[in-house]
């Protein structure tokens, strides 16, 4: 039979199309996620792997993703919306495999939308995993979420936030879950996952990733992921959608969590101490990092001590220059008040009417002169120098406030002290002795347990003397439990007055009644370490008078931001401001905090 020309052409076209499918397949086959062998995947995938090419400089080329987006013919948004709804339906019906498959399809359609990766990885690791009763299955799904997120990182190599999320998941989902003991153990033994991590560029075989048992630790892997994010930002990629302090602190905090976790697991020797030392180094490195602020300035969190010292020096100098001028200005202004205003500020706060309160707030703010106002009131020959000094002093205090504000975001002082305290030999000994005592107790060896407990208390007392803030540390919760068991063993309800941890018990009692005790301890600790230099033996025996630090300008003692009750702190601050008005004139920063005088009508000279 003769074929017509048209049929022959059509057959030729079909043949060409069929032949073209072969090179298309050869070119377009995606790289398998876990494969690091040369030659795996199509040609495009291999080129991408070799030359680190990225799709528009964003991330990995995935031919499957590109072809799927093309295939939607411009209706990618509709397709993605339908897939999202479908995924929700599968989740509701608990059809997990189809749910995962749908998430993979969503990722193919929206590979550069970071929220997709974060949201769905969270879905897998946090929401889906808990639906399973078997903890190994839960771990399996946590791992799937992690792999999903890592896939997102591959496709978005310039997204620091995704690195951060990955680090967060590794740390918190494995290390803070109710099943943290089991999950950490499963992760240690999950060699397949370690291979996957190695393929993602995480140096899983290095000492940086391995715990005391020589196996990878989830917290250390978390830290490595965070470090990759830091390298990216340091290399010039903008950090978007994440505040800098939580971003940069996560890595060192992962190291701290690792150190804490291994102690809980019974590693209470030189390895624990070394781990805390490395944590301390990490924390200090973080403290030295230059962090941009919302005031368009930069700060280093570790620079607070220097800034406070500088501000104090300037304040002393300014005080010497101005003499009792602030008091005079204050008196003059006070004399100009109307009777109504005078009555308002003289009335104790709790007895004021609403109108009197408003009057008092308005009036008090104007009574205390600012540095600049004081400088302007100086004699003409000294005025210029005074103005210059006033300006420098105001800026110095502003800087102190900025650093404090950023430190408060992650409780910087506390972690600094914790790292220092935990690497102390006394601390290691205290924990080890307590652990051994608990083991002896479990074996009903009461005499041995009592002996070990007694040794442990002495070590704890020494630590608390050096680092009082650790008395209210969450890690000392174990100490409370142990004390309780010690009491039961001795069959005593009360501790004797010479018990080594009497001060600890009193502090804990005070802390349980008033959580601000933590802030006061922290302030005291900071002052001792930063301003006066790290004291030896300083602690609860030498508290500052009236619970406030000696240096009036020690910002942490009067910093209202640290108080949990802004009204109370404002009142506290105003009392101190009123008490110290002449010698420590209000600065613009302090002006914001001043609200009311002590109600006695005149500031008390310091």
């Amino acid at each position, binding site marked *: 039979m003769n074929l017509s020309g048209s049929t022959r052409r059509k057959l030729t076209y079909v043949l060409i199309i069929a032949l073209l*499918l072969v090179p298309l*397949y050869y070119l377009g*086959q*995606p790289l398998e996620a876990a494969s690091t062998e040369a030659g795996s995947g199509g040609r495009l995938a291999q080129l991408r792997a070799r030359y680190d090419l990225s799709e528009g400089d964003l991330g990995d080329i995935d*031919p*499957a993703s590109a*072809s*799927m987006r093309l295939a939607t013919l411009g209706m990618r948004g509709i397709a993605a919306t339908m897939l999202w709804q479908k995924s929700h*339906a599968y989740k*509701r*019906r*608990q059809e*997990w*495999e*189809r749910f*995962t*498959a749908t998430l*993979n*399809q969503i990722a*193919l359609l929206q590979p550069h939308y970071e929220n997709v990766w974060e949201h769905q990885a969270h879905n897998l690791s946090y929401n889906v995993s808990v*639906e*399973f*009763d*078997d*903890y190994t*299955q839960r771990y*399996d799904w946590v791992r799937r979420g992690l792999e999903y997120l890592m896939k997102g990182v591959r496709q978005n190599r310039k997204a620091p936030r995704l690195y951060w999320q990955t680090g967060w998941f590794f740390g918190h989902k494995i290390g803070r879950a*109710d*099943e943290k003991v*089991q999950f950490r153990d499963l992760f240690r033994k999950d060699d*397949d996952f370690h291979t996957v991590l190695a393929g993602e560029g995480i140096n899983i075989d290095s000492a940086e990733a391995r715990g005391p048992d020589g196996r990878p630790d989830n917290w250390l892997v978390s830290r490595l992921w965070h470090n990759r994010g830091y390298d990216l930002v340091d290399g010039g990629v903008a950090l978007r959608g994440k505040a800098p302090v939580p971003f940069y602190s996560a890595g060192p905090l992962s190291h701290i969590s690792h150190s804490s976790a291994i102690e809980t697991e019974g590693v209470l020797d030189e390895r624990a101490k070394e781990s805390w030392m490395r944590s301390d180094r990490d924390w200090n490195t973080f403290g030295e990092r230059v962090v941009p602020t919302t005031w368009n300035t930069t700060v280093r969190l570790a620079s607070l001590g220097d800034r406070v010292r500088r501000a104090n020096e300037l304040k002393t100098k300014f005080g010497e220059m101005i003499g009792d001028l602030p008091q005079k200005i204050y008196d003059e202004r006070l004399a100009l008040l109307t009777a109504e205003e005078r009555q308002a500020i003289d009335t104790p706060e709790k007895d004021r009417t609403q109108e009197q309160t408003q009057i008092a707030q308005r009036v008090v703010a104007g009574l205390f002169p600012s540095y600049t106002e004081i400088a302007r009131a100086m004699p003409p020959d000294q005025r210029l120098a005074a103005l210059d000094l006033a300006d420098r002093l105001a800026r110095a205090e502003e800087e102190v406030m900025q650093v404090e504000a950023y430190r408060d975001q992650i409780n910087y002082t506390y972690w600094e002290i914790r790292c220092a305290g935990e690497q102390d030999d006394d601390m290691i000994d205290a924990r080890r002795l307590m652990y051994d005592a608990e083991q002896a107790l479990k074996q009903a060896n009461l005499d041995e347990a009592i002996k070990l407990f007694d040794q442990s208390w002495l070590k704890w007392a020494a630590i608390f003397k050096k680092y009082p803030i650790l008395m209210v540390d969450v890690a000392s919760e174990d100490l409370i439990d142990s004390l309780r068991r010690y009491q039961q063993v001795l069959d005593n309800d009360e501790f004797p007055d010479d018990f080594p941890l009497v001060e600890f018990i009193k502090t804990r009692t005070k802390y349980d009644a008033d959580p601000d005790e933590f802030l006061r301890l922290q302030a005291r600790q900071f002052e001792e370490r930063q301003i006066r230099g790290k004291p030896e033996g300083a602690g609860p025996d030498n508290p500052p008078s009236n619970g406030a630090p000696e240096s009036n300008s020690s910002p942490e003692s009067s910093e209202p931001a640290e108080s949990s009750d802004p009204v109370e702190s404002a009142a506290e601050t105003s009392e101190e401001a009123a008490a110290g008005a002449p010698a420590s004139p209000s600065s613009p920063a302090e002006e914001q905090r001043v609200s009311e005088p002590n109600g006695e009508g005149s500031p008390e000279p310091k």
Partner: protein
Amino acid sequence: MILQPEDFWSFSQWLLRPGAFLESALLQGIAVAIFLMILGLLFGYLVSAVRYGPVEGFYAVARVVREFVTKDLPQMRLRRIGAMARLAIKEALRRKVLVVVGVFIVALLLAGWYLDPTSNDPGRLYVSFVLTATNYLLILLALLVSTFSIPQDIKSRTIYTIVTKPVNALEIVLGRILGFAAVGTMLLVPMGVASYFFVSRGLQHSHEVEEVEDRAGELRGSTSVELGHSHTFQLDEDGQGLTELQRGHRHLVTRSSDNEFTVGPAVGLLRGRQPIYGSLEFLDRNGNPADQGLNVGYEDIGGGYGAGGLARLMGRVNRRDVYQHGYVEGGALTAAIYSFGGLDPNQFTDGLPLELSLRAFRTVKGDIVTGVRGTLSVRNPETRAESQPLTFIVKEYEVDQQFIPVKLRGTAGDVVKDLDLFTDLVTSDGRTEIVVRCIDSGQYLGMTQADLYIRAGDSSFAWNLFKAYLDLWLQMLIVISFGVMFSTFLSGPVALIATAVAVLLGMAAEWVFELSASMTPGSRRNLGGGPIESLIRLLRQDAMTTDFDLSTVPRVIIQGIDRVTVYMLDAVATALPNLPKMNTSEFVANGMNIFGALVGRHATAAVCYLLLAVMVGYFFLKTREVAG
């Protein structure tokens, strides 16, 4: 896979619905047929009356009916039907329908990029994909091919050539339908074969033996990781052994004489389990029978059966009958009782193999390492003799295999002794009960009727896949029937849209039923009202959960019109075929044998729709012939 009540009905239960005849398929079919007949005659009379006047119009309709009964039906010949079918096939082939197979093959080739063989249940993903892809392609093909044929003939006047052959309207319609169905079959066969090989080859894998150790004379080892999993195994003295069950399959491991270990291909990966289901009832916290198990607060998963047939249109049923998981509480008198019947001891000579897919719900974390525990016991419903509980740990989202041996300890008449399963615990007519309880206090076990069954055996995956494709073929047949029917009185594109609308409306029948039920007085569910009310709410941006804010008279009028509209829509939707309900791909995807009753029901429904479509198409074509 959660089976719903209608999935368990036998063919006769579905057809006749003993005790609920108003919901039966037979009554529904008769009602639809009668209704269509009356409607068709009325409509035909109206059209004829307009053309010829009332009296002549009546005679025209009567003539059509007479010719059908006396001439066209008795003179119908298979030879002429076959000729029309061949014509339809040639026409379809001329339109290059075989390219659909090419599209399908390309889809299979590229599917590997999108399917994850390392998932926990790759079989389900692969099977779902091939069946869904086939379904969509076939329905689309059926729509396009069936709706343009007759209008094209009418437009090109070739219809006159055909009818003068002579080929009567009945043969034309039937021939077209069968011809297009044959074309669909020609496509379905290679697609089915390709799917089978795609699934079986895509999932087939093997492992290497990674480590082996000798423990007190027993060789134990583990395999390499392939497709995201590995196995452990134990060899007997002959050097053979099965791996443990992982992801629903095992491998045979053999040791050769020169100490080489080989792992065979996966066994049990693709199968069609043949379950024997029982009925399920629950006991409450006091040990008394309860309507359903405890509700632990999970969201309604949807689905279910809104009752079909005339009962729905008569307002006798206004809620879905849906199975959700019922839970039994641990450490209490709550229990779930599965009642089985017709057990044959000759079929289960070694004991009863059970398979469970239970859920766990914890109210306290408890022992993280150990799963929630339950017990199974077998009980004689007459003598109340009961076996000692067999403890198990729940395995969620996978099939747990348990085995009840023939000889077991138990209690009979307050005496603890050795019991025989079929003598003491199964009645003479083969009835027994399996009681499921939860041991752990504060925890719960959840189940539906289909979550515990006796595994009677396995049918082959190929046969199961064939049945699923048969259901796809039946769906295609229905769509073709409707397409040809609409094309007898509508132009091609309009017939296409009409067929698509009919298919979609049938798919939405359950939703329409819910809407209709929500609009009945006293309903607590508010879906936003009918079409007019919804339009007003949309324009005013009112939420559908708020009251309809309108003064009384307009509100009553609008809601009244809406109620009538939705009721008529419900009536139409109920009459139309619900194609997703005919889809049995879930069975295959979950490794369950498709019940013969299901296939029978679908085939019956498809043939009935075919006959109805043929009748309607005949009358419309005849009317046009008479008019011509």
